């Protein structure tokens, strides 16, 4: 399963959604049967989506302090993302890192879960994609395709 996360109204935050769409276009050529979902990233919805899922590739935007456009890889199967459980119900939403930890303790985390994220720069409402993310999107999708191939070969 591929899950692209984000909000296209918030500049680089929509990069995960854009990458998922591009990856969906490439899938027929790769002949890999794979569901592609676009999602807001709201945690309990993700838990619902992950029920019974096999290997899962999550595509998102990140803000870690790395140079904008950098593609980051997190193996959620082996440990928590930065932030971890702290984002569970801090407000009225469950963040991705917290959703992963919640899924882990409830035994709902897909057997193999990889998060690929592109470092963003602009996240304000109404922003366009930053040049760094727009320019790095192809690299992001290429990395996602390689990750998908690796996930499929292992799964």
């Amino acid at each position, binding site marked *: 399963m591929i899950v692209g996360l984000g909000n296209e109204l918030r500049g680089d935050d929509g990069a995960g959604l854009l990458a998922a769409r591009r990856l969906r276009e490439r899938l027929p050529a790769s002949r890999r049967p794979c569901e592609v979902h676009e999602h*807001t990233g*709201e945690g*309990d*919805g993700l*838990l*619902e989506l992950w029920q019974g899922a096999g290997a899962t590739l999550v595509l998102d935007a990140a803000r870690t302090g790395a140079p904008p456009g950098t593609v980051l890889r997190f193996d959620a199967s082996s440990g928590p993302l930065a932030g*971890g*459980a*702290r984002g*569970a*119900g*801090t*407000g*009225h*939403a*469950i963040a991705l890192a*917290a959703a992963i*930890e*919640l899924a882990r*303790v*409830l*035994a709902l985390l897909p057997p193999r879960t990889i998060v690929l994220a592109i470092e963003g720069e602009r996240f304000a409402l109404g922003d366009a994609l930053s040049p760094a993310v727009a320019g790095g999107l192809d690299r992001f999708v290429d990395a996602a395709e390689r990750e998908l191939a690796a996930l499929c070969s292992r799964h």
Partner: protein
Amino acid sequence: MTASQTGKTRTIRTDYLARVEGEGAMYIRLDGDGVAEVRLRIYEPPRFFEALLRGRSFTEVPDITARICGICPVAYQMSSVRAMEQACGVALDQGPIRDLRRLLYCGEWIESHALHIYLLHAPDFLGYPGFVELAGDHPELAQRGLQLKQAGNALMRVVGGREIHPINVRVGGFYRAPTRAELRGLLDQLERAREHARETVRWVAGLEFPEVERDVELVALRDPGGAYPIDLGRIISTGGLDVPVAAFDEEFVEEHVEYSNALQGRLRNGGTYLTGPLARFTLARESLWPLAREAATEAGLTGTCRNPFKSIIVRAVETLQACDEAVALIEAYEPPDRAWVEVAPRAGVGHGATEAPRGMLYHRYEIDERGSILAAQIVPPTSQNQRAVEEDLRAVVQAHVELGDDELRAVCEQAIRNHDPCISCATHFLELTVERD
């Protein structure tokens, strides 16, 4: 710090309160054993929705105001469309469109209450820093909470078009009515949710509650048809108020306090009032359906409920009511011939109030003959409840003055979460400071 330090200033501060929506702070200063000052400071920046609505079309209000809140967008949509319909001389107080609106609202209540009971409030009662830690030790409990919330999400998705910021609501009704089959497809999930809600009432009734009784005036809507207050009604109170929604500004005022970005509500006579679950239950307990009423009685809630810590029980009872109503509405559902009625603009003023999960939400609009908005007023429940929350804190601190700082901070945070404040709505919200003299 302990009670042995009586006579000194004591300050406890939390700069950012977790498990509430938005950004806010609390400041408490104790002078000896007395509470000298309590401030609930909402510092999230103002968002100016009322100003940005001016000049927009009357048809845009449900979609624009839904964006004020991700957890109670239906409340904003319902209060706004009712206000616009009143301004235009249209009343949809009964019939299939009203039923569908109530069904959508049930979805929001289930979703919001399940979130608050399990993810935000339960960790306080069970002694966990958050929901993930709670889920690790009580996975069945966590699963039940998530499944309840997901049932609410599903209802929002099918009736509202999507679960956050629904897109199917319009002035006059809906863009599209769901088919019978689409709604019937939710029945199994909602029947399970009803069972979960029943179990939730039993579970929360067994929690430990501080003994606190608040003598604040309780305000809620009263449904003219005898339904539990959700989507329409007159404004009533435990102080004898019984007025139409259009009289809101005659009875209540909002005022600015220098330390907060949210306006604070009060009764025009100067008194403090509270809206939300305690008010609804106290004023409309007899309107609950038998299942929810019996569950409330079994949980020890009879007559009134004035202990804010027990709001978690009332939320569970209301979740059960919403599940029960949703099942009944779906079983009786016949799609309307048309999902909306025509609403032609005319110059005028309209008022709308509905019961958001955390309390009454009032909207007022003035429009011109073409339907362009001239003025907008939105009074969310968290603004109205802010003063009552501060008074709660004062009472809670006074009753627990012997506690050390960390324990006092914890009980104060819990006291704030009793009201499920949505600072994002009030302009958003929390940081906590307690000073002891």
